[in-house]
């Protein structure tokens, strides 16, 4: 079983003809439905539906409050290493970018853990650059053993692994997996991943499913918005989340919406994903998948994040550093520039002022 079969089924849809035929009446019909099908989801991503953002937002807000309540889960990313063996056109960690690479020692991992813990955060996403050589599974596992003493929930965002490797990490205390497909469009995926093991589209596409099979409690996926037409990429990612949710009901599935950010390098985006587009994607996701979590990182500006809050968001990062060792000591090359630089305390205050409860802990290590 693989989502690849689903992808092959829909990849050649004539999206532009479909969108050209969508009418206002079609959008209104979808908005009146309780349960949406694949075609309905595509209608919500159409240009015509962009005239219905307010109606979609009202419904999305209601569904989010009903399913998740007036709460927002907070997390922080922790970069263990920035060694990478891939050449990706859009990423600051690309092997072709000359900067001093860094990797935390186990002692430094603990220093970072303490610095993050002081902010009150209990939910961690552990990241490395994609290098099995510099960040082997054993290194990640050793780091996790330390981190489980400080955090109640730990996810990994690293290179795709085999099921057995994911199982090893689950046993070590990892309960979540984040892995972005970057580009669902297979041809564009091949173009932007110039050299390195990341060129293997299928191995990456099936990684979330392997994570589910390995017993990850939660799996977070998403496209890197900007590599291809966002309407298509958002559609494929939504179908991927739906596929995982239907086939692995015991895993909590969530979606992220990273947009390309300034980084080391000169890659130009293939598709501009403006704020209007981002809003339409969030709303379409919420209406199509009412129980799926939607995560928003500090890549987005403070003002935009504040306004996106009631539209379907369930999880936010706060006071993130994308540099290796960036919490205990503020130095190092960042994977990308963050936009919302507010502290955890400031985000907490904002949430409370907006009528949302910030949730720092949402899992108990067993």
């Amino acid at each position, binding site marked *: 079983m693989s989502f690849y079969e689903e992808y092959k089924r829909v990849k050649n849809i004539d999206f532009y003809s479909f969108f050209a035929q969508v009418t206002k009446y079609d959008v209104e019909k979808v908005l009146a439905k309780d349960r949406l099908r694949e075609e309905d989801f595509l209608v919500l991503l159409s240009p015509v539906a962009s005239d219905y953002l307010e109606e979609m937002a009202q419904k999305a807000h209601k569904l989010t*409050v*009903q*399913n*998740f*309540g*007036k*709460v927002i889960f907070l997390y922080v990313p922790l970069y263990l290493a920035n060694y990478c063996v891939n050449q990706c056109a859009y990423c600051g960690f690309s092997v072709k970018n000359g900067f001093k690479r860094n990797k935390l020692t186990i002692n430094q991992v603990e220093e970072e853990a303490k610095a993050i813990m002081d902010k*009150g955060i*209990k939910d961690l996403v552990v990241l490395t650059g994609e290098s099995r050589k510099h960040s082997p599974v054993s290194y990640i596992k050793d780091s996790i053993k330390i981190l489980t003493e400080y955090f*109640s929930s730990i996810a990994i965002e690293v290179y795709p692994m085999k099921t057995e490797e994911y199982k090893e990490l689950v046993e070590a205390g990892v309960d979540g997996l984040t892995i972005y497909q970057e580009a669902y469009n297979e041809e564009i995926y091949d173009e932007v991943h110039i050299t390195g093991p990341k060129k293997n589209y299928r191995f990456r596409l099936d990684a979330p499913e392997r994570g589910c099979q390995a017993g990850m*409690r939660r799996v977070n996926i998403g496209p890197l918005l900007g590599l291809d037409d966002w309407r298509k990429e958002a559609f494929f990612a939504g179908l991927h989340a739906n596929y995982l*949710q*239907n086939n692995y*009901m*015991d*895993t*909590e*599935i969530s979606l992220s919406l990273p947009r390309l950010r300034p980084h080391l390098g000169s890659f130009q985006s293939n598709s501009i994903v403006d704020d209007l587009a981002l809003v339409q994607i969030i709303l379409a996701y919420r209406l199509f998948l009412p*129980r799926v979590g939607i995560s928003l990182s500090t890549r987005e500006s403070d003002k935009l994040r504040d306004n996106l809050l009631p539209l379907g968001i369930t999880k936010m990062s706060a006071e993130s550093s994308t540099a290796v060792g960036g919490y205990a000591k503020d130095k190092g090359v960042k994977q990308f520039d963050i936009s919302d630089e507010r502290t955890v305390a400031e985000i907490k205050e904002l949430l*409370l002022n907006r*009528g*949302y*409860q910030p*949730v*720092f*802990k*949402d*899992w*108990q290590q*067993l």
Partner: protein
Amino acid sequence: MEDKLIIGGVELESRLFTGTGKFPSKEVIRETLEASNSQVVTMALRRVDFDNPEENVINYIPDNFTLLPNTSGARTAEEVVRIARIAKAAGCGNWIKIEAISDNKYLMPDNQETIKATEILAKEGFVVLPYVSPDLMVAKRLEEVGAAAVMPLGAPIGSNRGLKTKELIRILIDEINLPIIVDAGIGKPSHAAEAMEMGADAVLVNTAIATASDPVKMAQAFDYAVQAGRIAYLAGLGAVKDYASASSPLTGFLKGE
């Protein structure tokens, strides 16, 4: 005669159980619980932060409440048991609401895993309140293995759809010798009253209160509705007739009318 509900040796006057999830702030939780007149409150152990007093939801629960930690997040009996033991060791008492859910799309309880966990925890001395899909045989089995009550769902969690499983819950009320506490799906005070009128022993309400525009007022409304429903049940509802008492009876000729 006083009308009391006794669970695990605790006498309860209020038949409204409340929850702590989905609220906009912890301060609102405290105010709402006080307004609800409730005596039992459930909270997800997964969200309880014992290391951080400010974030620990337990510190916002008034002292006179009986804590009912739940095993939200558990997918199997084994996980349920581990969470229950953590809760007890952390000083949350020996009441436990079992939630064994391995379906993240609809959040439907896994009855088989729930029975397994109930048996283990009841033997360990827990007061076990299992959350289940309403099924007579499952409820009977729960009774056999030592559950302190049975908590059937009225509709999927958070759906606010009301008593969609009414006929099945009615069978549990008639056949099971344990308190039946309707949990999940109750979206309006009238739904709660309906459950109480049909003879449920209590109801647990969370989403409908927590996500109301004014949770404090909604908690009061549920308190009244549960009381009204209970009084109506005790008073004995009038029989519902399928036909009117005709002023021109069709069979009057038999009596010479």
